[in-house]
């Protein structure tokens, strides 16, 4: 009897798992690596190109300094400096989001095919990333740079997601057209 009950439960759980997959829809094909690199080359992503994010948010050294009574003051200075750097990094990530969003609109304006669903998705991603980064800025300002280190790493992932979606749109263009797009974009930015 227990086995039968277990099977009923498992059947229902499996059904909901499939339902979730069905709602998510087929996985969109990942853009080619060269398209991602091309986007990063065309659009200067200072926040995303900064590789020291995890180290910046790592509280280990701060805790080590604070643990020693004589180094408490050094720890406070260290914390303030890290806070300023983290705020700068968040501002750069916010800039990246805005630039990628503009770049995507620029590509669609220049004739790259995109569906309404994709546009709604990018709009939602951009709004979410902007809100999240703004919230993070307030948290870092209020509670310091190590308060939500995990969340700050997620912020980077959100910007990366936007970069990939721009790359997937660029990937639809023939490669020989990319330099032309880059020139037009640089002209528009200037």
């Amino acid at each position, binding site marked *: *009897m227990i*086995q*039968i*009950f277990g*099977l*009923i439960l*498992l*059947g*229902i*759980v*499996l*059904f909901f*798992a*499939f*339902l979730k*997959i*069905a709602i998510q829809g*087929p*996985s*969109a*094909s*990942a853009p080619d690596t060269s398209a991602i690199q091309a986007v990063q080359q065309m659009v200067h992503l200072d926040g995303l190109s900064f590789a020291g994010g995890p180290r910046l948010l790592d509280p280990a050294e701060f805790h080590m300094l604070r643990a020693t009574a004589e180094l408490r003051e050094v720890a406070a200075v260290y914390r303030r400096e890290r806070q300023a750097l983290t705020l700068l990094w968040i501002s750069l990530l916010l800039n990246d989001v805005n630039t990628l969003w503009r770049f995507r609109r620029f590509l669609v304006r220049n004739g790259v095919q995109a569906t309404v669903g994709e546009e709604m998705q990018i709009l939602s991603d951009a709004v979410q990333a902007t809100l999240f980064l703004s919230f993070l800025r307030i948290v870092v300002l209020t509670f310091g740079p190590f308060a939500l280190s995990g969340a700050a790493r997620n912020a980077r992932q959100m910007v990366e997601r936007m970069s990939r979606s721009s790359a997937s749109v660029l990937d639809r263009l023939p490669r020989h057209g990319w330099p032309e797009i880059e020139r037009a974009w640089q002209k528009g930015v200037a």
Partner: protein
Amino acid sequence: MYSGAALEAVLVWRLVKGGIYRHYPGFSFFVGYVVCQNVALFVSYRLAPTDYPAWYWNSGAVQVCLRFLVVWEVFRQIFPKTSPLHRMVSKQAALVTITLISVSTGMLWAVQNYSKSHSVYLAMDRSFGFVQAVLILAILTLARYYHLPVGRNIWGIAVAFGMYSSLSTAASALIDIMRTSFFPYWHLLSPFSFVAMLGMWIWAIWSYAPNQVATANESIDPAGDVGRWADNWGRAVSTARKVLHP
């Protein structure tokens, strides 16, 4: 009944049009069997109504077994022989399938369960349906884990089949507990879920949309890269050990 027949006809039409059936032989064979089964059942119902129940349950039991063809089709399309992942997962997949079938059949087809409903079909439906749903979910999860692009054809076939199999598992098990009180619902749930699966399959195979083939990257030197990865991994593990036990 007529909606199911109409959907089956449309499904066969889409498979034949443009030769989609050639790309998905396992799936097409299963669809072909279902169509023939229903035609045979209809003829039996009209000409020899007394034989109809035997035809229904026996052909249904064969159909439950043939559903593994759909699982196999999904597997071979997502992990084709050209894919570097094929070698890695094919043996494990066969092993997992055999183990799951053996364990679930042994457990769920046990005498005390089987003796309540006295139906081989229901025992088969719930145990095999469970295995099939788990296998499909495992294949889709692996595809997602390795970021394998799954085309609309196979994605639709797999998800619809998974939903149907899991519902069928739960329904066949429920009938053993609730017996006659669940029969009116089972009579609705079973055909409706099948019709929904047919509808989703039609949407999925409306046009040929295969998976992108994942091939081995020529620029990667497997031995060298694996060696470098193993060095880094070893270093990471020993560092972690040092941190944990200074």
